[in-house]
């Protein structure tokens, strides 16, 4: 099992980015394929009636656009401190980026310089809407950080089911299985 992380970190930053954006932070791409099951976010302001989405996104060099790998409705997020979330599963592939959509009333902690990567942004909610063109903001960072793990190196799903949803195969605990149909896990 390999630990996965993506995103620059959810910290109290010197600036903030205004409301109603979909962001892709490309400072720290996912280091392996598997699942994100933990998220940290830090917002400056928030209106606790509007819901947010966290996401993993990929870059398509052929079209110079970002697409959504997976996204998840987390509900509202309280501002003013690092908020942490667990218990969900987001698909992630090596090289994917951490992303977030935050609606009207929210502003996210933001750094305007000092990062080797940056943040791509687009006004409005664009997760799950096909590949999209975003505006690039180099050297920036926003306060998101996701972690997870690679369950099996070679098999993510069996019969369209996430391996993390399966307890046993033919009454054998999944954690003890090293091969499935001749394929090394």
């Amino acid at each position, binding site marked *: 099992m390999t630990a996965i992380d993506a995103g620059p970190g959810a910290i109290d930053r010197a600036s*903030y980015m*205004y*409301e*109603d954006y979909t962001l892709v932070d490309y400072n720290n791409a996912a280091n392996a394929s598997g699942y994100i*099951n*933990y998220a940290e976010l830090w917002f*400056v*302001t*928030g*209106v*606790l*009636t509007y*819901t947010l989405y966290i996401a993993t996104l990929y870059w398509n060099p052929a079209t110079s656009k970002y697409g959504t790998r997976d996204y998840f*409705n*987390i*509900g*509202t997020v*309280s*501002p*003013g*401190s690092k*908020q*942490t*979330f*667990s*218990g*969900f*599963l987001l698909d992630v592939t090596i090289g994917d980026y951490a992303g977030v959509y935050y609606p*009207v*009333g929210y*502003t996210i902690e933001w750094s305007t310089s000092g990062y080797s990567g940056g943040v791509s942004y687009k006004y409005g909610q664009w997760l799950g809407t096909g590949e999209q063109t975003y505006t690039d903001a180099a050297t920036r960072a926003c306060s998101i950080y996701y*972690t997870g793990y690679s369950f099996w190196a070679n098999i993510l799903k069996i019969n*369209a*089911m*996430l391996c*993390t*949803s*399966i*307890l046993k195969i033919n009454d054998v605990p999944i954690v003890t299985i090293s091969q499935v149909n001749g394929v090394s896990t």
Partner: protein
Amino acid sequence: MYVKVEPSGCCVRKGLVQIRLSMYLDINDYGYAKHHVQVPVIPEEGYKGDVSDLPKVWHNNPFHNHFIFAEPDITDKEILDIAEEYLKKAFSLWEKDQQLSLECTPVIFDPSPSAAKLFACDEKVQYLRTTELIRLLA
């Protein structure tokens, strides 16, 4: 400390009811000050001025949030019993300053749920969004 069902994080997901559990600290709990913070008050319609100009209020934020997925016939007691267990696990990590990446409960998502199942899930979500479910832990 206490845990409550957060209505905004409840919805239908892949044939199951998604339930968000938000966990809060009391004033005497370890690390209370980290999430008892002053936050700017944003108008409902949004705000694009300098947020430092806005009035602030004290807010007790969750120290952690965890999602569970359940069949629509889950009872309030079952939800709160699960919530209490996760609260204990989360606080155990919190007081050791460890990452609160609680494990997911293995569930079987239904990729093509029936209309009746979706209706039952939707009804449960509507119930959770209008019912306060909270469990205090001494």
